[in-house]
């Protein structure tokens, strides 16, 4: 197992409140790692640190051995790290396909010169559109490509953000509560997709409150409490750990 992401001794505090405290972890390729923990335990901050949305006070984050802590989010994204947001960010007033098209990297037509002259853009756009439709079909939104994202159900919108991550061709997906607040059937569908993506070589780090979901898909579970890692290991083992039970139940 080769490691894809290395987080070592990372700390971050906001106005004196410690959100992440000396956190270390290693994400291996083709593995699904889940982070669980009570509210305010620093889960989302950890994701923000990896994605470059906040900078660590101390510690290093390495992607394939390359230091990414301190890089701007768009640079990290371009290196193959995609993420979704807990409060579900996407372009609600745009069509699904436009959401996915925006996610493709290194498009010639994003430059002013190519956009004006049309050089290289027409064929590229055609190919991107075809791929975008395939991705939407893959996540289960076939035939909805031209509907507005805002008109979809909450669960379907989560599928759109997943399709965006895939369009980025990222190796590492950071998913913030991918199955929270949606019906069981959709939740099952998303978990199946995640398992399939692991098969296809993606590495996934997810934050989730739904422990059943976590058990179902995770290879490794990391438990956070007050910004510190209190347990790590196989899901069934970790969830029986008395320290974890105490942190969760009290």
């Amino acid at each position: 197992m080769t490691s894809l992401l290395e987080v070592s001794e990372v700390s971050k505090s906001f106005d004196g409140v410690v959100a992440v405290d000396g956190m270390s972890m290693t994400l291996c390729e083709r593995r699904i790692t889940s982070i669980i923990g009570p509210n305010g335990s620093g889960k989302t901050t950890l994701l923000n640190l990896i994605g470059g949305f906040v900078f660590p006070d101390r510690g290093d984050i390495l992607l394939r051995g390359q230091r990414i802590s301190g890089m701007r989010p768009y640079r990290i994204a371009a290196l193959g790290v995609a993420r979704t947001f807990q409060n579900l960010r996407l372009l609600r007033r745009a069509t699904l396909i436009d959401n996915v098209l925006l996610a493709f990297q290194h498009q010639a037509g994003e430059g002013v010169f190519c956009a004006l002259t049309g050089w290289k853009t027409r064929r590229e756009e055609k190919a991107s559109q075809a791929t975008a439709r395939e991705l939407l079909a893959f996540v289960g939104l076939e035939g909805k490509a031209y509907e507005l994202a805002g008109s979809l159900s909450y669960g379907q919108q989560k599928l759109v953000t997943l399709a965006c991550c895939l369009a980025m061709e990222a190796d590492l997906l950071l998913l913030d509560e991918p199955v929270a607040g949606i019906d069981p059937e959709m939740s099952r569908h998303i978990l199946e997709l995640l398992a399939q993506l692991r098969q296809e070589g993606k590495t996934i780090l997810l934050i989730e409150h739904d422990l059943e979901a976590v058990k179902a898909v995770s290879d490794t579970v990391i438990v956070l409490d007050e910004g510190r890692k209190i347990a790590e290991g196989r899901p069934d083992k970790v969830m029986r750990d008395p320290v974890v039970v105490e942190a969760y139940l009290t």
Partner: protein
Amino acid sequence: MDYALHLAIITCIYIILSVSLDLIAGYTGILSLAHAAFYGIGAYTTALVAVHLRLPFVWCLAVSLVAAMALGGIVSAPALRIRGDYLVIATFGFQVIFYHALSNWTDFTGGPMGVFGIPQPTVLGYTVTSRSGFLLLTVWLTGICVWACRRLAKAPFGRVLQGIREDEIFTLALGKSISTYKVKVTVIGAVMAAVAGALYASYISFIDPTSFSIMESILILAIVIIGGAGTIWGPALGACLLVTVPELLRFIGIPAAIAPNLRQILYGGLLMGFAIWRPQGLLGRYAFR
């Protein structure tokens, strides 16, 4: 006939101004009140270069574009750090500074007296003396600007701009350097506004700071909002309406003394009406926010 040609030329100038502001405000969501400053830098640069250096129009235009690029870069700097209401205030402040610089830097800009005796433009060795000739030049440059805005808006470039308007964080997470795009779009918009300024200066042959005040910025923004922000044809239509309709006031016998005031009331009323009943503007699909 001359009057109709005059209206057509002024309309074209406003089409350039509103379509270029639309790229900045309508597509990208950078609510800028500094567009008249870009318009002004184009007009003043063209005027000063033409009067003092006696260079042909193409060179005046070229120097104006470079000046506008620089100014666009300066204005976009705060836009990288702040948004929403604060950005409106920052661009407002910039516009006010620009206006006072024009009014008070008397040695260079002529101050409140303005710059006069701006020569008629010479294009390819041919001096444009007639109104119809000038209209031809204006329509040609307007066509280029509208075409360029449309190309940019429809391309993946425009998709990123709209992404920034709808959700900056999401767009950033998708690997787009939003600061680079903000600078680019502001500079492009500034350059086009400078084209409008260059046309205006060489057409009217006299310019003073009052043409480039905050009221002008507000008017251009009103055109964009009333026409439909985030569409190219909306602001173009808005420019046609907001330039020509107030002119009709002349024909219903309103004294010249109150006509300009009435015009301001008309703009204000229209803007309020649209904000309440049709926030997406005439041709727009989305409410401007």
